[in-house]
């Protein structure tokens, strides 16, 4: 009889209903917990883009330095260090650019700064100016002879 057949399968139906309930609950939980901006641009939280763009800047960028220190730019752009940006030697200065009076940058020590690039190393391009520091200057600070913003010396010339 149909009724008997159904009675015998009743527990299966109960199980199916229980599963359906769990599934619905899951879908509700999912709808509630998925971040709203998810999927905006792709399979990720769209808000992440704004968050990642809004981190604070630590290096100001040479364009900002040049807005105030144009006289240095004039010297630098005519010399060998034209392509070397300000913070490459002077360190991160966004805070100084933000409030020049309160954050006064310290002048870098040329005894240690310059050899970072110019100490001789077999792996550096041959044409790149490099010296063996100890032989070249005997341990003296580089700015004794070289002007850091325009460092190339004509033979015989000494820094004024």
């Amino acid at each position: 009889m149909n009724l008997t057949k159904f009675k015998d399968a009743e527990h299966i139906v109960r199980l199916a209903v229980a599963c359906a309930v769990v599934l619905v609950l899951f879908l509700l939980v999912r709808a509630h917990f998925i971040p709203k901006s998810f999927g905006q641009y792709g399979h990720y939280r769209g808000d992440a883009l704004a968050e990642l763009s809004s981190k604070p800047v630590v290096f100001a960028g040479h364009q900002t330095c040049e807005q105030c220190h144009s006289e240095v730019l004039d010297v630098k752009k005519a010399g060998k260090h034209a392509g070397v940006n300000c913070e490459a030697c002077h360190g991160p200065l966004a805070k100084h650019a933000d409030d020049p009076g309160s954050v006064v940058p310290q002048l870098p020590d040329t005894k240690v700064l310059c050899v970072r690039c110019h100490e001789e190393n077999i792996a550096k391009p041959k044409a790149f100016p490099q010296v063996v520091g100890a032989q070249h200057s005997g341990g003296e600070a580089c700015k004794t002879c070289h002007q850091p913003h325009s460092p190339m010396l004509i033979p015989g010339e000494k820094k004024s």
Partner: protein
Amino acid sequence: MMVPVEGFMYPNEIELQWSVLIVVYPFVTGLVAGAFILASLERIFHVVAVKPTYRLALLIALAFLLVAPLPLQLHLGHPERSLEMFLTPHKTSAMAMFGFVYLWYLMAVVLLEIWLDYRHEIVLLSQSTTGVKRLFYRALTLGSSNISAGALHVDDRVGWVVTLIGIPSAFLLHGYVGFIFGSVKANPWWSSPLMPVVFIFSAMVSGIAAVMLIYMAMMKIRKQPIDMRCVDTIAQYLLYTFIIDFALEMLDLIHRIYEADESFRSLDFLLHTKLFFSQVVLQIVIGTMVPILTIGFIQIFDVPEKLRRVAYAICGCLTIIGIFAMRWNVVIGGQLFSKSFLGYTTYKMNLISREGELIAAALLILPFFILAVLVKILPPWVESQAPSGD
């Protein structure tokens, strides 16, 4: 974190990312899949000889399945966010799909099959016990106490279908673990279409060995005789599966040696040094060849029963150790060499840490405690009857 490095490694590669917990996890899911396949031998393929282990295999599968997510949760940097894998699973990520494969396997296969097979006892127990136990069993009945012949017949038919679906589901459960590794093109030790297949067969080997060992141990504990026809048959299936597994692993090895691509020199050196003990000695010789030769010997020559039992016990243990070593060699081995193929690092495992040896050992022992509870709640055998009866 000064880890000894030989040669050159990319600076970020020196520290291993996936720890021993990620070795424990495929090992545990492998046991699950293997135990279930053994159970399905009886149900689908009517291998009557292994019937005594049918229910036990299901309970073993459940015990290990419940432990499987734990190493993963302990490994995550932010386990509190793990729900995200269900909320926003990335469909291109094998790892994301795991959450659903696991849930499917737990709910729709293992739990369902156990429920259907045990329903008769559950209903009886819900009427005969008292107190908390009674409530528990009543909940399990889902409110239905129909154990007429018709209802039990329905259970049997539905259970058959569940088992049938369960076999490919078991392959999926562990095959995808192999795919998680096999699909990483950045790592030549892992990247291979053979990886899911090797994982599945080694899982079957470990699961079959585990059921065999636990069955023999439980019979000893209950002071019941071991059904030798059952154990002999299980050992045979272990042998067949092992031969296929070994053939696949050797195929991978031979292929690598023959093609000798850019990664070969680096991997070959690794195999001869850092991985020599765990791969050549533990996995291949002790963990694979010894069991194959021993059980193979037993098929050809007449070996007395007592000696066979000892041989099976030893082979079972060696197999389990060998398969654990295989997981170790894949997971840890794959991170010991640099992707520049110019150097090697070392795995520093801490005894007491979230991902250390103690935790790994605890996770491997925990399933046995769960199994002990399961065996109490859902006894695989009726105490008064002989184990080989229905």
